[in-house]
């Protein structure tokens, strides 16, 4: 089998079971810490491990720096899914940043669930600097799950409407 063949079959596989329109590919934003997951993703690259190309990384010093508003903004900007990844519990470069992040996101996930967001669109993982292969698994897993959900049209429609109709009257009308 040539490379081109294997690629096209991979693309077919991707389409299989996909909910979105033809040619739609999920867009995923990953917020990662500099010390563990960013370095783990570097290791995946250095080891030439292959994974799906749907994730765009935004680097922060620590997962503790991530404001839940960033995640909301990513959805507003058209992200179909968000991944947050940092150091394993106990391994934080800043000793306790990931614990704060974990608490914050446990709460934030509850809020998202309450609002009606499928939690597959908001995922968390611990990937250390030595876990290049795990990073690959995480990315493929997240991408497949978001792909199975289809485009995040509900949120995107809402945020478009919000941008277009900013006055209070319209909000009341919609309510």
């Amino acid at each position, binding site marked *: 089998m040539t*490379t081109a063949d294997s*690629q096209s079959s991979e693309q077919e596989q991707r389409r299989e079971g996909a909910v979105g329109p033809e040619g739609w590919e999920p*867009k995923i*934003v990953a917020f990662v810490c500099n*010390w*563990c997951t*960013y*370095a783990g*993703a*570097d290791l*995946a*690259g*250095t080891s*030439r*491990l*292959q*994974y799906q*190309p749907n994730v*765009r*990384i*935004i680097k*922060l*010093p*620590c997962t*503790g*720096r*991530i*404001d839940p508003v*960033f995640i909301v*903004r*990513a959805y*507003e*900007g*058209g*992200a179909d899914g968000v991944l947050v990844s940092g150091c394993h519990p*106990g*391994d934080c*470069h*800043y*000793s*306790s*940043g990931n614990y*704060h992040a974990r608490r*914050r996101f446990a709460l934030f996930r509850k809020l998202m669930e309450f609002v009606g967001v499928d939690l597959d669109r908001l995922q968390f993982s611990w990937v*250390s*600097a*030595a*876990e290049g292969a795990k990073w*690959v698994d995480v990315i493929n897993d997240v991408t497949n799950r978001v792909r199975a959900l289809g485009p995040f049209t509900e949120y995107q429609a809402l945020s478009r409407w919000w941008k277009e109709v900013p006055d209070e009257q319209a909000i009341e009308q919609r309510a």
Partner: protein
Amino acid sequence: MARIGVFVCHCGKNIGATVDCERVAGEAAKIPGVVHSENYLYMCSDPGQLKIKDAIRDKKLDGVVVAACSPHMHERTFRRAVAEAGLNPYLAEMSNVREHCSWVHQDIEDGTAKAIDLVRVMVEKVKLNQPLTPIRVPVTKRALVIGGGVAGIQAALDIANGERDVILLERDPSIGGHMSQLSETFPTLDCSQCILTPKMVEVASHPRITLLTYSELEEVDGYVGNFQVKIRKKARSVDMDVCTGCGVCMEKCPVKKIPSEFNVGLSMRPAIYTPFPQAVPNVPVIDKENCIYYIKGKCKVCEKFCGPGAIRFDQEDEIVTYDVGAIVVATGYSLYSVGEKPPGSTIAGYGEYGYGNIPDVIDALQFERLASASGPTEGHMRRPSDGAEPKTVAFIQCVGSRCPEKGITYCSKICCMYTVKHAMLYKHKVHDGDAYIFYMDIRSGGKNYEEFVRRAIEEDGVVYLRGRVSRLYRKDGKVIVRGADTLSGTQVEIAADMVVTANATLAQPDSQDVAQKIGIAYDKYGFFSEKHPKLAPVETNTAGVFLAGACQAPKDIPEAVAQASGAAAKVLEMFAVDELEREPTIAVVNEDTCVACFFCKRICPYSAVEEKEIKDRDGNLIKLVSHVNEGLCQGCGLCVVACPSKSIELLGFTDEQLFAEINALAE
């Protein structure tokens, strides 16, 4: 309006093969604020850097984005280049289009699209970058070396000979580590203790080295150049200043039946003991768990016989604190056990080898003690069960190693060579004996290593059998070894008098605790992670912390010593300057909006947030605000998110910058 320059690197074919760099540069040029965009084969080369410098001057750039490898790789290179062209180095950022893009995606469309996005993200960030100045911090020119094996000893001596103070920490009663247990060393058959003990003595007598044995690391605070370490000096129950090391206490101690750790259970030791006769320091400790006085409240025989009166039953653990500028971690390895799976371990034992319960099946370290002239048999080959001289010995390699079924996939590296040595030593001691080695591959890379293997086979008649041993069992005082010889395609059964297993080299069982105390990374086996596997094998991701020896990966003695000297050179390099530069990406407080709730103070892991009084010109207090001590802040950004009034920014990672990055990905 911003004037940003974008520079897209091909990295030869590393990026160019799966990312259309020209198209990336073309798309970058269309981003508002980008006034210069180009692509080049090797951006990090001198001509590549020159292109950046020229563009900064010609186009009056106020921001630079280099789309190339990981910033962990070349951020410093490009920031330096930018600074040389007169621009503040913190106005340059990198888009990682190699590790995160070209190397992990094969499709050129996917790769190019992603690369364009990654460049866009950084362009929007750089537009909001502020010029920053590195923070200068003083350096405490004293090093802590953790672990007194050969790596720690070498590192401590090298630093001390470089005229810097060293604290050498060892948790056992004596320094020496595993090397002091070995009989001879490959490939020269140097006597291990004979070459190590002079170094041990040098450590003890060196005016620059403070030796803390029987002591453990409690806590590490601070940062590069300015660590505070807390060390627990366990109570020896013996006054080190008074004890003369005569050894009478050990002779008189009525408890005699404690398996010796140093002899790996092949001999017994008393409750007051030094691990071995050449111990440094030569001061015994009382093992409180086995001492009759500590258990029953009476005995004190050692105290009665101690001439100088050095016994101190009331001695207590002592916590000492030191300021150090650098830390060398040299905590060594432990040996895999074929016994049943210990609690919490991911590694299974060997049921087929009787879980270590068959007499005369010993591990490699026990064999070292048997072969050692200072060992329990004074170097005579005597098997443990009945003291008889074994006439047939089978050696089994890769016990645990290269065995995914048992949970270890890696090669322990040193076993091939020490097993050759074992077989050779055995043949030198028992001329009419037979030595069989079961092996998977003979890995003898190293100076004179292959020649050593040939010598064992050709001159000493050691028999190599390529295959695994499937079962060991006891029969008529022998150990029956059932295995395969895959080269001849036959089953092999050997009735051995003794079997030696070359067990896998493991990380220390508590290596994760140590890593978490110091704040360094470790892999899934518990070995500590170096900063870069090729180009920074001695450094860790935590500035000021270096690695030496087998705590990083299985290593033989020359490798451990070389790495230790490397770590020492890194420490001396740090200590050559009076001030270090630190990243200026720290938190700053907006005093106008701060409401003094001090959430930030509570959340800060470094106690970097202080309460600051703002007063009017008459000295009356107007209000309290938070203030970030820039010497202590490490720039994690926890406080930024915690602040309810949004009064803290993390320089280099401001909310505005991050929103700009997120928005850059919006449709």
